[in-house]
């Protein structure tokens, strides 16, 4: 099973990185994200980059954008390019195909996030001088976990959209709408009645950051599992062929 998942990841990455049509675009967008998160933003924030979790959390899920095209293309793209039926006619188990598609995107997005964190540390150490600086272990672990779970959630949502969409473009549009909701959710707070806002703010102020992060990560984990189980329910060879 693990071999089969790895085979699917190999194929997805091969298409993503080495094909002439897509490879350059992938490389360019990866470099841009690494440049922003690993060099530009750390230089703007300075030494606080290592100690201000919220700054880091706001940007840690940026690599999700790298995986959007990949996950929405996962099944709808194969259907459009007439490769899906051939893939389904192989001996690969359902779980291997599905997990391979999700993990290929998650590992890519998360890999870029981890690289960004490490590059940011290097950039700041070079620019600030003095003794070596790094994230505290709990902070670093939280950043890694948050990034992994948020990438996993959106990869799962993207694959789910792709399973249900006729074209990769349609899947991309659907996932973009979901992303917009997530992105603008914090802005929606200002439209709440003033006393509600005060209550929420008060509640948040009483919480310590560790509890908030634990709550967020727990919720992300539950959402990840829920989305993945929806993907498994949706993945049926006959249904994929006939849709």
């Amino acid at each position, binding site marked *: 099973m693990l071999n089969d998942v790895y085979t699917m990841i190999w194929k997805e990455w091969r298409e993503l990185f080495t094909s002439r049509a897509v490879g350059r675009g992938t490389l360019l967008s990866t470099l841009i994200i690494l440049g922003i998160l690993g060099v530009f933003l750390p230089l703007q924030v300075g030494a606080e980059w290592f100690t201000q979790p919220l700054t880091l959390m706001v940007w840690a899920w940026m690599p999700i954008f790298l995986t959007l095209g990949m996950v929405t293309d996962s099944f709808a793209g194969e259907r459009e*390019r007439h490769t899906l039926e051939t893939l389904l006619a192989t001996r690969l188990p359902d779980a291997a195909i599905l997990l391979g598609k999700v993990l290929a995107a998650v590992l890519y997005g998360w890999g870029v996030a981890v690289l960004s964190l490490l590059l940011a540390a290097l950039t700041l150490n070079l620019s600030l001088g003095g003794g070596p600086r790094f994230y505290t272990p709990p902070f670093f672990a939280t950043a890694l976990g948050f990034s992994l779970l948020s990438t996993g959630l959106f990869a799962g949502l993207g694959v789910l959209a792709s399973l249900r969409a006729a074209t990769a473009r349609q899947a991309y549009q659907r996932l973009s709408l979901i992303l917009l909701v997530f992105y603008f959710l914090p802005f929606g707070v200002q439209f709440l009645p003033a006393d509600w806002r005060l209550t929420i703010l008060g509640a948040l102020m009483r919480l310590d950051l560790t509890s908030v992060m634990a709550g967020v990560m727990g919720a992300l984990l539950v959402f990840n599992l829920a989305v993945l189980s929806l993907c498994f329910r949706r993945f049926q060879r006959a249904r994929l062929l006939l849709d």
Partner: protein
Amino acid sequence: MSQYAIRTEHLSRAFGALRAVEDLTLEVPAGILFGFLGPNGAGKTTTIRLLLGLLPPTAGTAFVLGYDVRTQANAIRARCGALLEHAGLYERLSAADNLEFFGRVARLPRDERQARIRQLLTDLGLWERRGEPVVTWSRGMKQKLAIARALLHRPDLLFLDEPTAGLDAVSAAALREDLVRLARQEGITIFLTTHNLSEAERLCQQVAVIREGRLLAVGSPEALRRQRRAPVHLVTSGLTPAVLEGLRATFGVEVIQSGEADGHWAVNLGPQQSVAPLVAYLVQHGVAVEEVRREHVSLEEVFLSLVQENEHAE
């Protein structure tokens, strides 16, 4: 392996009110090239999907290489190769990468995989271009590569769904040649769907004709041809109405072209009836027979008459 590569009994698949495959009972002996013929929308592709366990049947049973399509679909897919309606190649990847992926899928060990890829690409004349993205290739080359992919893991049974559709005559002939050579070399059973009847006639040891999901006939192309009435052309002199009536009464012939004016008669004999007794009868009755020629019935004519009979029966 059993004597039959494929065995179906009353296999049916409906999509709502549409019966795509209906009551299909079929036996495909192992080791032959079997043609599954039918017009567009006859149910050929649905049958392949049923046999590969990609669609569950709504009724009936099917066993492929001894495995039940309902419960052992993974085992079937592991032992079968398939070139379906589309070539199904990852066109952004190179030919070598395509085969590498499907070789990994089939769990071929690395050395065996590399050797097999080299052998198949060399056999099909594609080795020199293995590094090029498939998107730049011609349709004929892509189909060849798709066949290499389907044969990569040395399957016992190969499903080919209209493999030469959309190819020009030269590419189609080259592909057919490669197909037959490789099939012999590998000793596998091939289940070929096509509506190209001359192709089926040339390649297949047995054929089945399907229309609107129902099986109309099955057998060797020769046997199917023998079952049809083949016109016999006679150039005679002295064939009187009385002798003609005698021919009708004795042999059940049906005159399809009268030779009263020029002595050239064309008559239909019953299926599997020999011409010799008819000629002997004519000679005995004083008719001078100058020429006898039995018209060749092509598989296409057999197919068309089967379809027409089926239409009339409805």
